[in-house]
């Protein structure tokens, strides 16, 4: 089967082989800015993502200061952030703005663009043996739409009435009426424009990823010889393509309600002493449109991380990923189920109880493919020969936090339990651990693992260890106690708990959480310092050690810093799946995909068939 060479692949290779000869003139602008090289676009996504992660993380520190020390004043913060901190104390409107922007930035700009944008761009062509994306130009547009979207969102922070403050879910009527909250004025308009641009960016990227995976695989690279990273990124792109347009429709209708006086989401509203003329709309409709993207969005965030973790765990434990096909079908299962569970975010919205039962069923079913993945990762480590480094540590940390955050999904996905825990800190704990921390861990693992391929140098391992252990412990210290707050009924999105006797008993834990959040945030700055330092001064990857992790996948067959086109000569030919680790009993403990099958292996294949 591996020997079958498709004509398309051959033609494709012939067409591209002379690429090196007609080198176009490289200027600063077309190499670094308006570049069509997928590797440079990946770096652009990564840098922008890191910028946003710092902003998003900083915002969480600012509102954690309020929650941890509600009575203290911090004149220093007033100097730095002006009227967000009047008299050194965070203003409630600013608090809700920071919470909203933290969510928006982290979910969309960091974990969608920064994570999947970076690694889909970087890994898909390199791991399937393609010269570049199917359309380099659309790929470039995808980044620049994201950049524009970032500019608009960043600008919204400086609007006098503040950026959007209705929560990252921007439920109308709060987000539709400037009378309801100052952030729903210009700030919300900019939020919607920014998201519309962002969705454009995601769709262009996604179309490219799907087309590239389906059409540009090198000779011999059957679908079932693709690394799990590519599988995960492929399904991620499909999810994005099918769900983001629905959010766009919601956003457009919300823009109509806000500026044209339509009533898609508004009805019978009396605010500020006035009855408004909206009639017949439904705020619940918006929630359906939002969560039809919003839930698949969490899989957009976590699937690329899962894919990278599968790859990294196999490579560094020197063992084939256990149950390769089961891993692919579990991703497929998660993808399909992910589309029919959105209303579990709406159990308490007045939803028909029958719908609640259906969404409970599908939601809990997702635990099955997720459990399969966890058990397969564990079995991959079992009897491995595990090399520990920053990349594999973060991959192992991923499995730990994915379990910790995943099991509470079985609580919240159950409509009955959700009645009690809905909109409490239990929810905050759950989704931060399972899609925040886990996705970040996957991203870090990916950055440490592929940094040498991205920049031709290694990151500093000592700083990597500090980064890992502080972040790993710190994340548990931040988010684990939030389960207890939730079990005590403490609601999320509260500026202060003083008003309620039931909620004000956690001053001590809130201080611990805030202190840990500050420590973890500063540790991320260590990562950023390491990242920037290593780009210029890190230990160099030399051309006699092109494959530092002894990995099987194709990206390590390229030169130290591959040019546009990735392989200087012909594209590599693939003969085997990417997980032949420790298959040989002697010699190297890995067999790259480019190594032809031995006669014995061919015999085995034939006997199986």
């Amino acid at each position, binding site marked *: 089967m591996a020997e079958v060479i498709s004509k398309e692949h051959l033609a494709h290779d012939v067409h591209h082989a002379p690429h090196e000869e007609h080198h176009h003139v490289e200027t600063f602008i077309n190499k670094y800015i308006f570049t069509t090289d997928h590797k440079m676009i990946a770096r652009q996504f990564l840098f922008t993502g890191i910028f946003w992660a710092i902003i998003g993380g900083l915002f969480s520190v600012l509102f954690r200061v309020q929650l941890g020390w509600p009575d203290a004043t911090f004149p220093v913060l007033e100097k730095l952030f002006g009227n967000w901190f009047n008299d050194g104390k965070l203003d409630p409107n600013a608090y809700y703005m920071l919470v909203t922007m933290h969510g928006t930035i982290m979910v969309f700009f960091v974990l969608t663009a920064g994570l999947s944008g970076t690694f889909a761009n970087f890994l898909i062509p390199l791991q399937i043996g393609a010269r570049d994306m199917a359309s380099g130009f659309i790929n470039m547009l995808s980044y620049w739409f994201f950049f524009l979207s970032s500019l608009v969102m960043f600008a919204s922070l400086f609007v006098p009435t503040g950026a959007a403050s209705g929560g990252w879910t921007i439920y109308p009527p709060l987000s539709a009426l400037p009378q*309801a909250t100052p952030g729903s004025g210009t700030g919300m308009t900019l939020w919607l424009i920014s998201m519309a641009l962002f969705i454009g960016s995601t769709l262009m990227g996604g179309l490219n990823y799907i087309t590239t995976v389906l059409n540009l695989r090198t000779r011999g690279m059957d679908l079932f010889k693709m690394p799990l990273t590519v599988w995960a990124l492929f399904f991620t792109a499909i999810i994005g393509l099918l769900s983001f347009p629905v959010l766009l429709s919601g956003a457009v209708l919300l823009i109509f309600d806000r500026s044209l006086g339509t009533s898609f989401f508004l009805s019978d509203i009396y605010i500020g002493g006035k009855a408004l003329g909206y009639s017949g709309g439904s705020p619940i409709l918006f929630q359906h449109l939002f969560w039809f993207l919003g839930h698949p969005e969490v899989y957009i965030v976590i699937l690329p991380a899962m894919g990278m973790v599968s790859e990294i765990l196999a490579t560094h434990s020197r063992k084939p990923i256990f149950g390769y096909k089961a891993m692919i079908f579990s991703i497929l299962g998660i993808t399909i189920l992910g589309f029919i569970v959105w209303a579990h975010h709406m159990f308490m919205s007045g939803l028909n109880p029958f719908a609640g039962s259906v969404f409970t069923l599908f939601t809990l079913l997702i635990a099955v493919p997720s459990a399969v993945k966890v058990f397969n990762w564990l079995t991959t480590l079992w009897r491995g020969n595990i090399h520990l480094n920053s990349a594999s540590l973060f991959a192992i940390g991923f499995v730990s936090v994915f379990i910790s955050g995943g099991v509470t999904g079985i609580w919240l996905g159950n409509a009955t339990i959700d009645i009690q825990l809905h909109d409490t800190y239990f929810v905050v704990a759950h989704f931060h651990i399972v899609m925040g921390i886990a996705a970040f861990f996957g991203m870090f693992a990916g950055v440490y693992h592929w940094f040498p391929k991205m920049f031709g140098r290694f990151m500093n391992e000592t700083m990597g260890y500090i980064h890992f252990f502080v972040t790993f412990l710190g994340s548990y210290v931040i988010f684990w106690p939030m389960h207890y707050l939730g079990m005590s009924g403490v609601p999320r999105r509260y500026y202060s708990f003083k008003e309620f006797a039931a909620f004000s008993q956690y001053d001590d834990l809130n201080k611990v959480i805030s202190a840990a959040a500050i420590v973890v945030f500063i540790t991320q*700055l260590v990562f950023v310092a390491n990242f920037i330092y290593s780009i210029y001064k890190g230990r160099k990857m030399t051309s006699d050690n092109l494959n530092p992790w002894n990995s099987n996948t194709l990206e390590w067959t390229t030169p130290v810093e591959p040019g546009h086109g990735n392989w200087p000569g012909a594209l590599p030919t693939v003969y085997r799946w990417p997980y032949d680790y420790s298959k040989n009993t002697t010699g190297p403990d890995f067999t790259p995909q480019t190594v032809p099958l031995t006669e014995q292996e061919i015999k085995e294949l034939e006997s199986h068939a």
Partner: protein
Amino acid sequence: MSAFLLILTIVLLVIVVLQISKAAELARVLKGDSDYEESNGNLALITTVVGFVILVASLWSIFTYKDRFLPVPASEQGVWIQSMINWTMFFTCAVYIITQILLFWFVYKYKFSSKRRAFWYPDNGALELAWTVVPAIVLTVLVILGIQKWFKVFSETPTDAIVVDVTAQQFKWTLRYPGNDNVLGARDFSLTNSNNELGVNWNDKNSHDDFFADDMVIPVNTPVLVKISALDVLHNVNLVHFRVKMDAVPGIPTKMWFRPTITTDSMRLILNNPEFEYELNCSELCGSGHYNMRKVIKVVSLDEYKKWARTQSLENAFYTKNVQPELAASTAQTDTTSSSKEAAITTATN
């Protein structure tokens, strides 16, 4: 100055870590591969220790903090939810403990050794089938239990339920009771104005004995139907000790019912806290005052409730006390036509 110092401290801290790490990295490169196996082993040990510390601390802290969790459910519905939580707790804790132990044990046990080669083990159909089917069975049990209880919570409201009309707006609650006829006066959004924010139709006779209350007084062991609406943005009526909540949606009335089982006085004894009050809060972000929407709930005996409601309805009915006098006053002043009388009704002060 202090702002500058703060930033400087953080920057210096990062630089210190950077410098130390540079030195450590240099040392590692100089030593070469000679002690790679040992340092890898140390790292494995640290990782496993950290993993087990997290596991033990995460479990042990449950017992430290469980006294602060919500007390016994104060409603029948809460008891059903609690039992669902207990079942789920059992299964998820088991999975959490087993998988975390395996994960961190493997990390140490199978750390790199130059004498060994990893075990070639790409697949095992039976094993994979087992850990697809077993979770599927456990989840089926949880789904069945969950859906059963869910339908119990959202079952038809019993006919003997007392009714409270809760209206949410930025940033307060309005509690309206149906009075002695146990029927609320009709509401009509077109009648809403600043004097009649709820848009109560005072021409509807059912509204005449309705009264407003500061505290939510409800009887124990009697079903309570909460009719919910919102005037401006989304809110959520959260009765935390009764473990029930429901969104308040402008334009779309919602409802929930529950049966309180513990009076305020009994709960004070249970918690040994004479100050204890049941509280109602808002659980859906509604703007800058979201965290301030509090009402006290008083659970009393059915007799006490009936007595209180009867007195309120007789002495405090909004129509007789506020709307009617105003109507009378305007009638006395001028010989009103029926249309201006209606206008007076709708603008009666709230």
